[in-house]
Protein backbone atom coordinates (compact mmCIF):
# COMPACT_ATOMS: atom_id res chain seq x y z
CA UNK A 1 0.00 0.00 0.00
CA UNK A 2 0.94 3.60 -0.23
CA UNK A 3 2.97 3.28 -3.37
CA UNK A 4 5.20 6.20 -3.83
CA UNK A 5 3.71 8.02 -6.72
CA UNK A 6 6.18 10.82 -6.74
CA UNK A 7 9.15 8.61 -7.12
CA UNK A 8 10.26 6.63 -10.07
CA UNK A 9 12.89 4.20 -9.04
CA UNK A 10 12.05 2.14 -12.10
CA UNK A 11 12.33 5.06 -14.45
CA UNK A 12 8.99 5.11 -16.19
CA UNK A 13 8.87 6.45 -19.70
CA UNK A 14 9.63 10.11 -19.95
CA UNK A 15 6.58 10.55 -22.06
CA UNK A 16 4.37 8.64 -24.41
CA UNK A 17 4.13 9.73 -27.99
CA UNK A 18 1.43 8.04 -30.01
CA UNK A 19 1.46 5.23 -27.46
CA UNK A 20 5.19 4.68 -27.85
CA UNK A 21 7.04 5.31 -24.66
CA UNK A 22 9.87 7.77 -24.94
CA UNK A 23 12.35 6.29 -22.57
CA UNK A 24 14.96 8.94 -22.54
CA UNK A 25 16.02 12.10 -24.12
CA UNK A 26 18.51 11.58 -26.91
CA UNK A 27 22.02 12.60 -26.06
CA UNK A 28 21.93 15.54 -28.40
CA UNK A 29 18.97 16.92 -26.47
CA UNK A 30 16.83 16.96 -29.56
CA UNK A 31 13.19 16.30 -28.84
CA UNK A 32 10.80 15.65 -31.68
CA UNK A 33 8.35 18.55 -31.93
CA UNK A 34 5.27 16.38 -31.43
CA UNK A 35 6.77 14.99 -28.27
CA UNK A 36 7.61 18.33 -26.86
CA UNK A 37 4.22 19.17 -25.50
CA UNK A 38 3.73 15.92 -23.66
CA UNK A 39 7.29 16.04 -22.56
CA UNK A 40 7.13 19.49 -21.05
CA UNK A 41 4.01 18.52 -19.19
CA UNK A 42 5.97 16.05 -17.14
CA UNK A 43 8.25 18.74 -15.78
CA UNK A 44 7.48 21.25 -13.13
CA UNK A 45 9.44 23.93 -14.95
CA UNK A 46 12.77 24.84 -16.45
CA UNK A 47 14.70 24.05 -13.29
CA UNK A 48 13.15 20.62 -13.09
CA UNK A 49 13.99 19.96 -16.72
CA UNK A 50 17.56 21.12 -16.34
CA UNK A 51 18.02 18.99 -13.28
CA UNK A 52 16.63 16.03 -15.15
CA UNK A 53 18.99 16.53 -18.06
CA UNK A 54 21.97 16.77 -15.76
CA UNK A 55 21.06 13.70 -13.71
CA UNK A 56 19.93 11.66 -16.68
CA UNK A 57 23.11 12.15 -18.61
CA UNK A 58 25.25 12.06 -15.54
CA UNK A 59 26.59 15.41 -16.56
CA UNK A 60 28.75 17.62 -14.57
CA UNK A 61 26.92 20.87 -14.69
CA UNK A 62 30.13 22.26 -16.10
CA UNK A 63 29.90 20.00 -19.09
CA UNK A 64 26.43 20.98 -20.15
CA UNK A 65 26.55 21.86 -23.80
CA UNK A 66 25.27 25.33 -23.19
CA UNK A 67 24.73 26.22 -26.82
CA UNK A 68 22.63 23.12 -27.50
CA UNK A 69 20.64 23.53 -24.37
CA UNK A 70 19.95 27.16 -25.09
CA UNK A 71 18.74 26.27 -28.55
CA UNK A 72 16.47 23.61 -27.09
CA UNK A 73 15.08 25.94 -24.46
CA UNK A 74 14.34 28.51 -27.14
CA UNK A 75 12.36 25.84 -28.96
CA UNK A 76 10.29 25.21 -25.83
CA UNK A 77 9.61 28.87 -25.50
CA UNK A 78 8.49 29.07 -29.15
CA UNK A 79 6.19 26.17 -28.62
CA UNK A 80 4.68 27.42 -25.41
CA UNK A 81 4.25 31.08 -25.87
CA UNK A 82 0.89 30.79 -27.46
CA UNK A 83 -0.80 28.77 -24.79
CA UNK A 84 1.14 29.00 -21.62
CA UNK A 85 2.51 32.47 -21.55
CA UNK A 86 3.54 32.36 -17.95
CA UNK A 87 5.38 29.08 -18.23
CA UNK A 88 7.03 30.27 -21.44
CA UNK A 89 8.33 33.22 -19.49
CA UNK A 90 9.91 30.90 -16.95
CA UNK A 91 11.70 28.97 -19.66
CA UNK A 92 12.73 32.19 -21.32
CA UNK A 93 14.23 33.36 -18.07
CA UNK A 94 16.18 30.14 -17.76
CA UNK A 95 17.38 30.49 -21.34
CA UNK A 96 18.53 33.99 -20.60
CA UNK A 97 20.40 32.74 -17.58
CA UNK A 98 22.08 29.99 -19.58
CA UNK A 99 23.10 32.48 -22.24
CA UNK A 100 24.42 34.80 -19.61
CA UNK A 101 26.47 32.06 -18.04
CA UNK A 102 27.78 31.04 -21.39
CA UNK A 103 28.77 34.55 -22.33
CA UNK A 104 30.37 35.32 -19.02
CA UNK A 105 32.44 32.20 -19.30
CA UNK A 106 33.73 33.33 -22.64
CA UNK A 107 34.95 36.58 -21.16
CA UNK A 108 38.31 36.82 -19.44
CA UNK A 109 38.05 36.45 -15.69
CA UNK A 110 38.25 39.65 -13.70
CA UNK A 111 41.47 39.56 -11.76
CA UNK A 112 40.44 40.92 -8.41
CA UNK A 113 37.44 38.77 -7.67
CA UNK A 114 37.75 35.54 -5.81
CA UNK A 115 37.37 32.48 -7.89
CA UNK A 116 34.22 30.98 -6.43
CA UNK A 117 32.27 34.16 -6.80
CA UNK A 118 33.45 34.66 -10.29
CA UNK A 119 32.07 31.36 -11.51
CA UNK A 120 28.83 32.38 -13.17
CA UNK A 121 27.49 28.88 -12.71
CA UNK A 122 27.66 28.90 -8.93
CA UNK A 123 24.25 30.44 -8.38
CA UNK A 124 22.60 28.08 -10.84
CA UNK A 125 24.24 25.11 -9.17
CA UNK A 126 23.05 26.32 -5.80
CA UNK A 127 19.50 26.58 -7.06
CA UNK A 128 19.61 23.18 -8.71
CA UNK A 129 20.83 21.57 -5.52
CA UNK A 130 18.20 23.31 -3.45
CA UNK A 131 15.49 22.24 -5.84
CA UNK A 132 16.71 18.68 -5.86
CA UNK A 133 16.62 18.61 -2.09
CA UNK A 134 13.04 19.86 -2.14
CA UNK A 135 12.02 17.22 -4.64
CA UNK A 136 13.46 14.65 -2.31
CA UNK A 137 11.58 16.26 0.57
CA UNK A 138 8.32 16.10 -1.41
CA UNK A 139 8.87 12.39 -1.98
CA UNK A 140 9.59 11.76 1.67
CA UNK A 141 6.51 13.69 2.75
CA UNK A 142 4.42 11.74 0.32
CA UNK A 143 5.67 8.51 1.85
CA UNK A 144 4.56 9.43 5.34
CA UNK A 145 1.27 7.89 6.36
CA UNK A 146 -1.38 10.46 5.59
CA UNK A 147 -4.75 10.87 7.26
CA UNK A 148 -7.62 9.65 5.05
CA UNK A 149 -5.22 8.17 2.50
CA UNK A 150 -3.42 5.65 4.70
CA UNK A 151 -5.46 5.65 7.86
CA UNK A 152 -8.80 6.94 9.10
CA UNK A 153 -9.45 8.73 12.32
CA UNK A 154 -12.09 7.33 14.59
CA UNK A 155 -15.22 9.23 15.44
CA UNK A 156 -18.00 7.29 16.99
CA UNK A 157 -21.55 8.51 16.53
CA UNK A 158 -22.92 10.64 19.31
CA UNK A 159 -26.48 11.69 18.82
CA UNK A 160 -26.94 14.53 21.24
CA UNK A 161 -23.81 16.40 20.39
CA UNK A 162 -24.56 16.49 16.71
CA UNK A 163 -27.98 17.91 17.39
CA UNK A 164 -26.73 20.61 19.70
CA UNK A 165 -23.92 21.98 17.65
CA UNK A 166 -24.33 21.88 13.92
CA UNK A 167 -20.89 21.89 12.34
CA UNK A 168 -19.79 24.90 10.42
CA UNK A 169 -18.21 24.56 7.06
CA UNK A 170 -16.32 26.87 4.76
CA UNK A 171 -15.76 27.10 1.05
CA UNK A 172 -12.47 25.40 1.74
CA UNK A 173 -14.32 22.36 3.04
CA UNK A 174 -16.36 22.24 -0.15
CA UNK A 175 -13.22 22.62 -2.19
CA UNK A 176 -11.66 19.73 -0.31
CA UNK A 177 -14.77 17.61 -0.77
CA UNK A 178 -14.78 18.25 -4.48
CA UNK A 179 -11.07 17.56 -4.86
CA UNK A 180 -11.76 14.24 -3.21
CA UNK A 181 -14.52 13.57 -5.70
CA UNK A 182 -12.52 14.44 -8.78
CA UNK A 183 -9.73 12.19 -7.71
CA UNK A 184 -11.59 9.58 -9.60
CA UNK A 185 -10.73 10.11 -13.21
CA UNK A 186 -14.25 9.18 -14.18
CA UNK A 187 -15.67 12.22 -12.50
CA UNK A 188 -13.17 14.33 -14.31
CA UNK A 189 -14.38 13.05 -17.62
CA UNK A 190 -18.07 13.36 -16.96
CA UNK A 191 -18.14 16.60 -15.16
CA UNK A 192 -16.16 19.24 -16.89
CA UNK A 193 -17.96 22.11 -15.37
CA UNK A 194 -16.84 25.59 -16.06
CA UNK A 195 -17.73 28.82 -14.35
CA UNK A 196 -20.34 29.51 -17.02
CA UNK A 197 -22.19 26.25 -16.63
CA UNK A 198 -22.25 26.75 -12.93
CA UNK A 199 -24.12 29.99 -13.31
CA UNK A 200 -26.47 28.28 -15.73
CA UNK A 201 -27.02 25.63 -13.09
CA UNK A 202 -27.75 28.28 -10.48
CA UNK A 203 -30.41 29.81 -12.70
CA UNK A 204 -31.86 26.40 -13.44
CA UNK A 205 -32.61 26.08 -9.74
CA UNK A 206 -34.01 29.59 -9.68
CA UNK A 207 -36.32 28.99 -12.63
CA UNK A 208 -37.58 25.77 -11.07
CA UNK A 209 -38.25 27.57 -7.81
CA UNK A 210 -40.15 30.20 -9.73
CA UNK A 211 -42.29 27.62 -11.49
CA UNK A 212 -42.91 25.60 -8.40
CA UNK A 213 -46.55 25.44 -7.43
CA UNK A 214 -47.77 27.39 -10.43
CA UNK A 215 -49.61 26.08 -13.41
CA UNK A 216 -47.37 27.73 -15.88
CA UNK A 217 -45.72 31.06 -16.36
CA UNK A 218 -45.10 33.08 -19.45
CA UNK A 219 -41.67 32.92 -20.90
CA UNK A 220 -41.10 36.63 -20.31
CA UNK A 221 -41.96 36.40 -16.63
CA UNK A 222 -38.85 34.38 -16.09
CA UNK A 223 -36.65 37.30 -17.04
CA UNK A 224 -36.34 40.05 -14.51
CA UNK A 225 -36.78 43.45 -16.14
CA UNK A 226 -33.60 44.57 -14.44
CA UNK A 227 -31.57 41.62 -15.68
CA UNK A 228 -28.33 42.45 -17.47
CA UNK A 229 -27.71 41.12 -20.96
CA UNK A 230 -25.43 38.47 -19.56
CA UNK A 231 -28.09 37.40 -17.11
CA UNK A 232 -30.74 37.21 -19.81
CA UNK A 233 -28.47 34.96 -21.83
CA UNK A 234 -27.76 32.75 -18.86
CA UNK A 235 -31.43 32.51 -17.90
CA UNK A 236 -32.24 31.63 -21.48
CA UNK A 237 -29.57 28.93 -21.48
CA UNK A 238 -30.92 27.68 -18.15
CA UNK A 239 -34.41 27.33 -19.63
CA UNK A 240 -33.04 25.50 -22.64
CA UNK A 241 -31.02 23.22 -20.40
CA UNK A 242 -34.09 22.53 -18.27
CA UNK A 243 -36.04 21.69 -21.39
CA UNK A 244 -33.25 19.43 -22.57
CA UNK A 245 -33.24 17.61 -19.25
CA UNK A 246 -37.05 17.39 -19.57
CA UNK A 247 -37.52 19.33 -16.38
CA UNK A 248 -39.69 21.97 -18.01
CA UNK A 249 -41.91 22.03 -21.04
CA UNK A 250 -42.00 25.02 -23.31
CA UNK A 251 -45.36 25.54 -24.98
CA UNK A 252 -46.63 27.90 -27.60
CA UNK A 253 -50.32 27.19 -28.11
CA UNK A 254 -50.69 29.60 -31.00
CA UNK A 255 -48.31 30.47 -33.73
CA UNK A 256 -46.49 33.65 -32.72
CA UNK A 257 -48.50 33.51 -29.53
CA UNK A 258 -47.37 33.70 -25.96
CA UNK A 259 -44.78 31.15 -24.93
CA UNK A 260 -45.40 29.36 -21.67
CA UNK A 261 -43.05 27.43 -19.50
CA UNK A 262 -44.27 24.82 -17.10
CA UNK A 263 -42.77 22.25 -14.80
CA UNK A 264 -43.05 18.89 -16.52
CA UNK A 265 -43.48 17.15 -13.22
CA UNK A 266 -46.64 19.07 -12.43
CA UNK A 267 -49.65 16.90 -12.57
CA UNK A 268 -51.85 18.09 -15.35
Amino acid at each position, binding site marked *: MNPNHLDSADTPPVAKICGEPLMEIPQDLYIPPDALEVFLDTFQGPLDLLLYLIRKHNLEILDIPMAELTKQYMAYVEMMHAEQLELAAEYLLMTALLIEIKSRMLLPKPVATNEEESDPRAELVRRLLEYERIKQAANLLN*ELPQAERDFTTI*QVWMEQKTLNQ*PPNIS*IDDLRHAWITLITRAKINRHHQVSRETLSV*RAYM*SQVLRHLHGRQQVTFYELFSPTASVAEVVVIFLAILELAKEALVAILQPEVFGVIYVRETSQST
Partner: protein
Amino acid sequence: MSVKLVNPPETLDTQDTLSPFKTKRILEAVLLTTQEPLSVTELRKLFDNELNAALVTNLLNEIREKWTESGVELVHVASGWRFQTKAEVQPFVDRLSPQKTPRYSRAVMETLAIIAYRQPVTRGDIEDIRGVGVSSNILKTLSARGWIDTVGHRNVPGRPALFATTQAFLNDLNLRSLEELPPLDELGSLVEKNEELPLA
Protein backbone atom coordinates in the same frame (compact mmCIF):
# COMPACT_ATOMS: atom_id res chain seq x y z
CA MET B 1 7.14 2.77 1.29
CA SER B 2 4.57 3.12 3.97
CA VAL B 3 6.03 3.44 7.38
CA LYS B 4 4.00 0.94 9.30
CA LEU B 5 3.50 -2.24 7.39
CA VAL B 6 4.31 -4.16 10.47
CA ASN B 7 1.67 -5.41 12.73
CA PRO B 8 2.08 -7.65 15.70
CA PRO B 9 0.85 -11.13 15.09
CA GLU B 10 -0.77 -11.36 11.71
CA THR B 11 -1.43 -9.11 8.80
CA LEU B 12 -4.88 -8.48 7.47
CA ASP B 13 -4.30 -9.74 4.00
CA THR B 14 -7.55 -10.90 2.42
CA GLN B 15 -5.69 -13.31 0.21
CA ASP B 16 -5.27 -15.48 3.26
CA THR B 17 -8.17 -17.33 4.70
CA LEU B 18 -10.07 -15.07 6.98
CA SER B 19 -9.93 -16.27 10.51
CA PRO B 20 -12.83 -15.15 12.70
CA PHE B 21 -10.25 -13.24 14.69
CA LYS B 22 -9.07 -11.24 11.68
CA THR B 23 -12.58 -10.74 10.41
CA LYS B 24 -13.73 -9.33 13.70
CA ARG B 25 -10.74 -7.08 13.85
CA ILE B 26 -11.59 -5.63 10.45
CA LEU B 27 -15.30 -5.32 11.18
CA GLU B 28 -14.61 -3.55 14.42
CA ALA B 29 -12.13 -1.10 12.90
CA VAL B 30 -14.32 -0.30 9.90
CA LEU B 31 -17.40 0.24 12.06
CA LEU B 32 -15.44 2.60 14.27
CA THR B 33 -14.54 4.75 11.26
CA THR B 34 -18.06 5.35 10.02
CA GLN B 35 -20.78 7.33 11.66
CA GLU B 36 -23.44 6.10 9.29
CA PRO B 37 -24.82 2.69 10.22
CA LEU B 38 -23.55 -0.15 8.00
CA SER B 39 -25.82 -2.97 6.94
CA VAL B 40 -24.73 -6.59 6.95
CA THR B 41 -24.90 -6.48 3.16
CA GLU B 42 -22.43 -3.61 3.05
CA LEU B 43 -20.19 -5.28 5.58
CA ARG B 44 -20.14 -8.49 3.55
CA LYS B 45 -18.75 -6.52 0.62
CA LEU B 46 -15.66 -5.82 2.67
CA PHE B 47 -14.82 -9.48 2.26
CA ASP B 48 -15.91 -9.81 -1.34
CA ASN B 49 -19.10 -11.49 -0.14
CA GLU B 50 -17.11 -14.52 0.89
CA LEU B 51 -18.78 -14.63 4.27
CA ASN B 52 -22.45 -15.37 4.62
CA ALA B 53 -24.81 -13.02 6.39
CA ALA B 54 -25.38 -15.32 9.35
CA LEU B 55 -21.66 -15.53 10.05
CA VAL B 56 -21.22 -11.77 9.84
CA THR B 57 -24.18 -11.26 12.16
CA ASN B 58 -22.69 -13.72 14.62
CA LEU B 59 -19.39 -11.91 14.59
CA LEU B 60 -21.15 -8.58 15.07
CA ASN B 61 -22.90 -9.99 18.09
CA GLU B 62 -19.60 -11.19 19.47
CA ILE B 63 -18.15 -7.72 19.01
CA ARG B 64 -21.18 -6.24 20.75
CA GLU B 65 -20.61 -8.60 23.67
CA LYS B 66 -17.01 -7.57 23.93
CA TRP B 67 -17.90 -3.89 24.14
CA THR B 68 -20.67 -4.04 26.73
CA GLU B 69 -18.41 -2.89 29.56
CA SER B 70 -17.07 0.06 27.68
CA GLY B 71 -18.35 3.63 27.32
CA VAL B 72 -19.10 2.97 23.68
CA GLU B 73 -21.50 0.36 22.39
CA LEU B 74 -22.23 -1.41 19.16
CA VAL B 75 -25.91 -1.06 18.36
CA HIS B 76 -28.19 -2.40 15.70
CA VAL B 77 -30.42 0.32 14.28
CA ALA B 78 -32.83 0.25 11.39
CA SER B 79 -30.29 0.73 8.63
CA GLY B 80 -27.55 -1.35 10.13
CA TRP B 81 -24.88 -1.47 12.78
CA ARG B 82 -22.96 1.36 14.29
CA PHE B 83 -20.87 2.22 17.29
CA GLN B 84 -22.23 4.98 19.46
CA THR B 85 -21.28 6.70 22.65
CA LYS B 86 -23.30 5.75 25.69
CA ALA B 87 -25.37 8.55 27.16
CA GLU B 88 -23.42 8.43 30.41
CA VAL B 89 -20.29 9.59 28.58
CA GLN B 90 -22.06 12.67 27.24
CA PRO B 91 -21.40 14.90 30.28
CA PHE B 92 -17.69 14.25 29.94
CA VAL B 93 -17.62 15.05 26.24
CA ASP B 94 -19.50 18.27 26.99
CA ARG B 95 -16.64 19.41 29.20
CA LEU B 96 -14.32 19.54 26.24
CA SER B 97 -13.74 22.93 24.76
CA PRO B 98 -16.38 23.85 22.22
CA GLN B 99 -13.81 24.12 19.44
CA LYS B 100 -13.94 20.35 19.22
CA THR B 101 -17.22 20.71 17.41
CA PRO B 102 -18.26 17.84 15.23
CA ARG B 103 -17.55 17.90 11.56
CA TYR B 104 -19.82 16.67 8.85
CA SER B 105 -18.81 13.30 7.55
CA ARG B 106 -17.17 13.00 4.21
CA ALA B 107 -20.38 11.61 2.76
CA VAL B 108 -22.29 14.71 3.84
CA MET B 109 -19.65 17.10 2.49
CA GLU B 110 -19.40 15.32 -0.82
CA THR B 111 -23.16 15.27 -1.22
CA LEU B 112 -23.30 18.97 -0.49
CA ALA B 113 -20.52 19.68 -2.98
CA ILE B 114 -22.36 17.77 -5.68
CA ILE B 115 -25.61 19.58 -5.03
CA ALA B 116 -23.83 22.93 -5.01
CA TYR B 117 -21.98 22.35 -8.25
CA ARG B 118 -24.40 20.21 -10.21
CA GLN B 119 -27.80 21.49 -9.13
CA PRO B 120 -30.55 20.70 -9.65
CA VAL B 121 -29.80 17.03 -9.04
CA THR B 122 -31.70 13.98 -7.92
CA ARG B 123 -30.51 11.52 -5.34
CA GLY B 124 -29.73 9.17 -8.21
CA ASP B 125 -27.46 11.78 -9.80
CA ILE B 126 -25.59 12.14 -6.54
CA GLU B 127 -25.22 8.40 -6.25
CA ASP B 128 -23.88 8.23 -9.80
CA ILE B 129 -21.19 10.74 -9.04
CA ARG B 130 -20.26 9.36 -5.65
CA GLY B 131 -20.49 5.81 -6.92
CA VAL B 132 -22.19 4.78 -3.72
CA GLY B 133 -25.63 4.96 -2.18
CA VAL B 134 -26.69 8.17 -0.46
CA SER B 135 -28.55 7.52 2.74
CA SER B 136 -31.63 9.63 3.29
CA ASN B 137 -30.08 10.69 6.58
CA ILE B 138 -27.51 12.69 4.66
CA LEU B 139 -30.13 14.58 2.71
CA LYS B 140 -32.15 15.11 5.87
CA THR B 141 -29.12 16.51 7.67
CA LEU B 142 -28.58 19.01 4.89
CA SER B 143 -32.17 20.11 4.54
CA ALA B 144 -32.60 20.31 8.33
CA ARG B 145 -29.70 22.70 8.23
CA GLY B 146 -31.59 24.70 5.64
CA TRP B 147 -28.82 24.39 3.08
CA ILE B 148 -30.68 22.39 0.45
CA ASP B 149 -34.26 22.07 -0.61
CA THR B 150 -36.43 20.47 -3.23
CA VAL B 151 -37.01 22.65 -6.25
CA GLY B 152 -39.05 20.25 -8.34
CA HIS B 153 -39.25 16.70 -9.57
CA ARG B 154 -37.72 15.09 -12.60
CA ASN B 155 -40.29 13.78 -14.96
CA VAL B 156 -39.10 10.20 -15.03
CA PRO B 157 -40.54 7.10 -13.38
CA GLY B 158 -40.64 7.61 -9.65
CA ARG B 159 -40.58 11.38 -10.12
CA PRO B 160 -37.47 11.84 -8.00
CA ALA B 161 -37.03 15.13 -6.16
CA LEU B 162 -34.57 17.66 -7.52
CA PHE B 163 -32.29 19.22 -4.93
CA ALA B 164 -30.65 22.62 -5.06
CA THR B 165 -28.80 24.77 -2.59
CA THR B 166 -30.63 27.59 -0.84
CA GLN B 167 -29.98 31.21 -0.07
CA ALA B 168 -29.21 30.18 3.51
CA PHE B 169 -26.38 28.03 2.19
CA LEU B 170 -24.89 31.03 0.40
CA ASN B 171 -25.36 33.19 3.49
CA ASP B 172 -23.76 30.68 5.82
CA LEU B 173 -20.79 30.36 3.52
CA ASN B 174 -20.49 34.08 3.02
CA LEU B 175 -21.08 33.82 -0.68
CA ARG B 176 -22.99 36.29 -2.76
CA SER B 177 -23.68 33.79 -5.51
CA LEU B 178 -22.83 30.28 -6.56
CA GLU B 179 -20.36 31.69 -9.01
CA GLU B 180 -18.14 32.54 -6.10
CA LEU B 181 -17.53 28.86 -5.45
CA PRO B 182 -14.05 27.79 -6.52
CA PRO B 183 -14.16 26.93 -10.23
CA LEU B 184 -13.90 23.22 -10.75
CA ASP B 185 -11.70 23.10 -13.81
CA GLU B 186 -8.85 24.65 -11.89
CA LEU B 187 -9.21 22.27 -9.00
CA GLY B 188 -8.58 19.29 -11.22
CA SER B 189 -4.91 20.07 -11.70
CA LEU B 190 -4.18 19.72 -8.03
CA VAL B 191 -4.50 16.01 -7.83
CA GLU B 192 -2.65 13.34 -9.66
CA LYS B 193 -4.25 12.63 -12.97
CA ASN B 194 -3.49 8.97 -13.11
CA GLU B 195 -1.52 6.35 -11.39
CA GLU B 196 1.69 6.66 -13.37
CA LEU B 197 3.58 9.70 -12.38
CA PRO B 198 6.59 11.32 -13.91
CA LEU B 199 10.18 10.95 -13.20
CA ALA B 200 12.15 11.78 -10.17
